């Protein structure tokens, strides 16, 4: 057996490499919707460079061998790929639990039937509680009606369904109705996630940033609904970073349990990692997945806690949140190694809060929609 290099973080400290549990597979960046908080990068991958179905099948087998248990098929809109059923089947054949994350647009009853027995679980995004709100936010007329039709088919076939409600200042006051809708649709779960202000969402901070009062009210609504719906529906709630005292442990720790594959096969520690300058990300076309996971410099860069700066290094939450989100540190502090500025112990936190509060009181409602560069208005 030849000697393998010891994995080292950005400062050269040796790091321990665990096994990944979950993988986000972004099958395409194409999407009929244009949500102004899209989590895809601002520079979208073009269709020509997307992995083929055969390449995905190989990636899924490699992922299962590496320890991945669940794959989340996402995008863009995964249904924008004509070969979605073939891709999903190959994931299931690899032994993975298959979760489809979709807006519903592009799915027909017959396409859903092709996924019966292949996809374990469906996640349907929700932009608003009625056509007026949902079609405005998604930038796509008729999206809400179409989505409700898809939800009906999903229920008729019997897929377990989670509704993914993305909330922000324009729709957060209607959270109780979103929860009611999930209940009416027979969902086992609803995920209520406040917009993360990276990438596209950062371009829309003024129309989308929730107020402190809205966030406090949402917390009460969630708590009451959890009581009422116990044993019937699970509510997962992701509050706004800007209202937190401590940052989230992004991805459960960089390179610890999750990985993300971009449409062109680039392997990332999180979906936004490419915003971090100075890291080079490898693709499944140039190296085996296991080698990228174990030895890739980008994956090792922020593993563990040895590289953490102060005040994180001496913080008792060091092993809880690992200094927060690297992409947020990059975006707000201009340095991916910095303490996440949403942490109350960051020197930048007061300024961040003031800016968020100012954005939240804006009466700006003009949205910058997510589009491919050639379609975007300059």
């Amino acid at each position, binding site marked *: 057996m030849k000697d393998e290099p010891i994995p080292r973080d950005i400062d050269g400290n040796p790091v321990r490499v665990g096994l990944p549990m979950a993988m986000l597979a972004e099958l395409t960046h194409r999407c009929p919707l244009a949500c102004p908080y899209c989590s895809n990068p601002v520079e979208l991958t073009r269709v020509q460079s997307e992995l083929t179905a055969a390449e995905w099948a190989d990636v899924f087998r490699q992922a299962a061998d590496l320890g991945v248990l669940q794959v989340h098929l996402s995008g863009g809109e995964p249904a924008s790929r004509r070969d979605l059923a073939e891709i999903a089947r190959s994931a299931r054949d690899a032994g993975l*639990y298959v979760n489809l994350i979709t807006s519903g647009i592009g799915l027909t009853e017959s396409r859903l039937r092709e996924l019966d027995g292949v996809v*374990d679980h469906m996640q349907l995004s929700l932009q608003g509680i009625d056509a007026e709100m949902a079609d405005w936010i998604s930038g796509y007329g008729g999206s809400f009606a179409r989505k409700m039709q898809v939800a009906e088919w999903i229920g008729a076939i019997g897929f377990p369904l989670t509704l993914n409600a993305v909330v922000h200042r324009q729709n957060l006051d209607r959270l109780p109705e979103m929860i009611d809708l999930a209940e009416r649709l027979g969902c086992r779960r609803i995920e209520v996630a406040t917009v993360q202000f990276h990438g596209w969402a950062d371009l829309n901070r003024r129309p989308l940033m929730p107020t402190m009062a809205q966030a406090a009210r949402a917390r009460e609504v969630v708590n009451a609904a959890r009581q009422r719906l116990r044993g019937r529906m699970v509510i997962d709630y992701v509050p706004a970073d800007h209202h937190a005292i401590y940052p989230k442990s992004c991805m459960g720790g960089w390179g610890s349990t999750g990985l993300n594959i971009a449409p062109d096969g680039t392997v990332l520690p999180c979906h936004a990692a490419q915003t971090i300058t100075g890291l080079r990300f490898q693709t499944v076309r140039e190296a085996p997945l296991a080698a990228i996971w174990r030895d890739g410099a980008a994956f090792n860069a922020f593993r563990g806690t040895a590289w953490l700066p102060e005040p994180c290094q001496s913080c008792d939450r060091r092993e809880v949140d690992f200094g927060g989100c690297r992409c947020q540190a990059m975006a707000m502090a201009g340095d991916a190694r910095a303490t996440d500025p949403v942490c109350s112990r960051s020197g930048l936190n007061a300024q961040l809060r003031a800016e968020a509060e100012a954005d939240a009181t804006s009466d700006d409602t003009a949205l910058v929609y997510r589009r491919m560069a050639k379609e975007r208005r300059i």
Partner: protein
Amino acid sequence: MTGHRISGGCVPYLPRGVRLHDDRVRGMRVLLAPERAMRLDPVGDAILSELDGKRSLAEVVLTLCQRYAAPAEQIEGDVQEFIRGLVDRRMVFLACAEGDAQQGCQDEG
């Protein structure tokens, strides 16, 4: 996770989208569910492996008592606590006859 006791007449089952899985890489049994992967200890695995969607909770407890030659009260307590936790998280469903109706007890759909 406290309170409501599941009636012995209810039939617990893994609903669609929740399944047992051999994790060959880590060498353990896991329960896979929407956005969740739960590591199972031998007790949890033994309980869930008995759920066939036909036998009632009382019958499952009886089978486990016989197999492990353990006192019924102890098995009953372990099974109640474990299943109740999973029912609350929507990872186990219960099919209950009318007389067994109670909180957390309902059919799918």
